[in-house]
């Protein structure tokens, strides 16, 4: 972790202090609930904004993010010994004048996962063992990791899949506790998962399904439902953007779809639901070159300053199209390493072992 964490001396101090502050706040939160948790979010947001101004490598911000976990405190105490005072001074000046650059603006925290542990309900087998992840508006995150490391499980736990039970940790989405919500409420709040293997639903036409989903979201927002014709009007441009043949609408949901067609169909649903936090589990697997370009440009087309994307992928290829702000490496149910897009290149070149050796 340390290797990617110290691009500049000045940078070190900030996480140190913020981490300390976090540590204190954390302690408070443990005792209280709810509102206090939100105050943590907002303070970390502010800090991150400051970091950008100092043009410190993005990886450092991750120290802020990780600060609430127990390992962070060890790191903090050592850095503070060296650079504590100077850091404090910098901190003071910055908080006085938090200037935001137009392009490099970092949005509010959208999703913050802390120490998330989850087991398979049926067997009790632990899959997630303390996942930490913070996603801000406007960001693109990528999670990579070996088969079976828990990437899909993380994404399914976040959307409330009944196969898993959360045993520890929190997930705060848009300032609210995600795990208090039913799966459909999470969807209404704008959370979306493109499944690694979408299920087939014989007997339900894609058109009916999309319209039901769209209208469910609209009624949750207090908007009137769309009739069949209106909905078709709403849908057509989205179909076109994905280069999808309208005949897909008459077919049953995912039934007999090829691997690539299923992925396109997932992204079509994303487009229809206009989600704010899109988790895309291996949308690149099974796609041919053209399909990958279509899907990636559709995803890019949906990006806005106030939404975010979390991609799970095995290959650099997807990241060439959808540029990640951060790349995380997952192993055995934890995120063990975080960096910028160079991490993925490193991985592509040397595999997971090389990545570990360099750490």
């Amino acid at each position: 972790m340390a290797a990617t964490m110290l691009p500049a001396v000045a940078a070190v101090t900030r996480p140190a202090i913020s981490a300390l502050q976090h540590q204190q706040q954390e302690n408070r939160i443990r005792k209280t609930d709810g509102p206090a948790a939100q105050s943590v979010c907002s303070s970390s947001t502010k800090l991150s904004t400051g970091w950008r101004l100092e043009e410190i490598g993005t990886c450092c911000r991750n120290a802020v993010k990780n600060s609430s976990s127990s390992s962070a405190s060890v790191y903090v105490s050592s850095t503070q010994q060296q650079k504590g005072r100077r850091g404090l001074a910098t901190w003071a000046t910055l908080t006085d004048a938090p200037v935001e650059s137009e392009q490099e603006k970092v949005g509010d925290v959208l999703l913050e996962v802390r120490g998330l542990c989850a087991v398979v309900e049926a067997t009790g087998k632990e899959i997630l063992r303390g996942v930490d992840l913070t996603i801000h508006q406007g960001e693109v995150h990528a999670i990579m990791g070996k088969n079976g490391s828990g990437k899909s499980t993380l994404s399914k736990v976040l959307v409330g899949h009944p196969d898993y039970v959360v045993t520890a940790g929190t997930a705060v989405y848009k300032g609210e506790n995600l795990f208090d919500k039913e799966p459909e409420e999470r969807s209404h709040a704008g959370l979306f998962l493109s499944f690694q293997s979408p299920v087939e639903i014989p007997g339900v036409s894609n058109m009916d399904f999309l319209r039901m989903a769209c209208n469910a979201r609209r009624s949750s927002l207090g908007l009137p439902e769309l009739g069949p014709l209106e909905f078709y009007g709403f849908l057509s441009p989205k179909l076109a953007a994905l280069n999808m043949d309208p005949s897909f609408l008459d077919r049953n949901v995912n039934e007999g779809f090829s691997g690539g067609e299923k992925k396109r169909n997932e992204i079509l649903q994303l487009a229809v639901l206009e989600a704010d936090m899109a988790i895309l589990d291996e949308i690149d697997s099974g796609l041919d070159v053209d399909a990958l370009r279509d899907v990636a440009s559709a995803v890019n087309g949906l990006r806005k300053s106030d939404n975010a994307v979390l991609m799970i992928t095995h290959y650099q290829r997807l990241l060439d199209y959808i540029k990640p702000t951060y790349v995380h490496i997952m192993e055995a149910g934890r995120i063990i390493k975080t960096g910028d897009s160079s991490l993925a290149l490193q991985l592509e070149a040397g595999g997971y072992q090389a990545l570990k050796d360099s750490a």
Partner: protein
Amino acid sequence: MAALSAIAMVGNASLGSPSNCSAVLSPPCNVSAEKQRRFSRSRCFFPFVASVLETKNEAEKYRKDKTRSVLNNRRRPSITSVVTNLSWCSTSSAAEIGGRRHGAYAQGASLRDQAEASSVSLVSPSTPDLFLLDLASKIEDSLAEGDDLGNDVLARLREEATEATLGCRWPTNKDEAYRFTDVKFLKLANIVPVNSSSESSFNPESLNLPESEGSRLVFIDGVLSKTLSRVDNLPEGVIVGSISSIPQEAVRKFVLPRLSGVAERSQRDVFACLNGVGARDLVVVIVPAGVKVTKPLYVLYYSSSQGSPSSSSSVASSENSSYALSNPRLLVTVGKDSELDFVEDFSGAPESLYWSNSVCEIEIHERGRVGHSYVQEQSRHAVHIRQTYVSQVEASSYKLVEAVFGGRLSRHNLHIQQLGPDTVTEMSTFLLAGRKQLHDLHSKLVLDHPRGISRQLHKCIVSDSSGHGVFDGNVRVNRLAQQTDAGQLSRNLLLAPRATVNVKPNLQIIANDVKCSHGAAISDLEEEQLFYFRARGIDAMTARSALVFSFGAEVLQKLEGAGLRKRVESLVKNSLAEEGYMNPELAVTI
């Protein structure tokens, strides 16, 4: 994984080595759902089913198989142990099944034959069935008094059928074929054969029939109505009409050969025989060689209100209730390289007691293709009994889509005989059994020639505690039927506590180079599908409704004609809504 689907057994049989071994795979399954509330989970019945399997090995294999897609048709190495379980899986307890597995069914196929042969008929002239004789003579008398529908061919048909009837007896639950299907109540009821026309009392427009551009045949109480039928826009050469109205030459060429042997084909089925005795008409559809009928032919069967009304409490006491009996009969012949799509729609006067006892014979010649949609929406108190005989010559194709909703009792005996190689046969059935309804499908496909392909999908929803579904699906792959590719799947959805199905999909394989799979599942809704809906923001209640609806829609989507599908859609929605399983406004379509 907490999957809700219980695939009771998946059998994949493939006998790769040349051996004389015959295998009867009969996935035992069954079950009455004891659910605490609607939409609640039904537990899997794995341990219980495993006890039926002969060996630990089988159980093990089954466990591995249970999650696999049922129709995956994988070739498997030869199965050396013969699984012989011909017993039905009974609804109530594991003990009963466990006990029966040691039963007398060790010899599989041959015993099966025996069971089949003894099932309905039991020819024992020494003990004539008085009720049946009484009924047959009542039918004869009514014909003599009724409209004059005299015709030589019909007379011959009746004669032959009367003779066959003498050798039959009324089935009881001791007959394998009627073990779960009670027809005793008809013995207690008053049966009144309809012998007069009530054409005027019926307006087909009142049924809100789908707009059909094709031709239309309308049976009223078993007799073709000339005024309501419309057969003018058929391709040249196609002959459609009552036996008395079609050219003598066509009768000689197409009808007479088919007439003899009616009794054999029906395997002396008592209801088929009664149909022959009481047939007031024989309607014929002949598509000569090389003719393609592009628009579907719509055949409507209407039972008028000549029985007693069913709305009052009189239904409860069956002695007073009288069922108006009609015996429609249809013969369809499709020549070489010809094509025909036709829809059969069974309907009737609402709130009225009737018994529709129909027979349909379908002959498909070389490379002929028949698409057959069958919709049964008779009154909830009606009795619907039906025999369908299909014979398929070389390279012909027959696709049946069946949707069954109405009737207190509905029973369909479907018999398909392969007469040449390279045939394609598809049977898709959806049955919805609600309050006090029993729906029964007995299908039998006999393959005697190489390279046949067959697919059967049987789906049944039982939506009420007093509802009951019965399925016996037999596919027989005989010695010469090498390289057969046969798949069979039965899926059953029990929505209410004590709802019952008895299903017995079974493959008998005597050929040794075949690819066959079959399976049966008693399930609740699929958890993974339910979650997919919820993950897209659709609440659990709506998702369940949609999934219950889609369970049937998978089959109903194959019905011929958008208008028909639309009508069936509202039928399904209304009957599911009536029992509280879905909101009829739900935006799902077929």
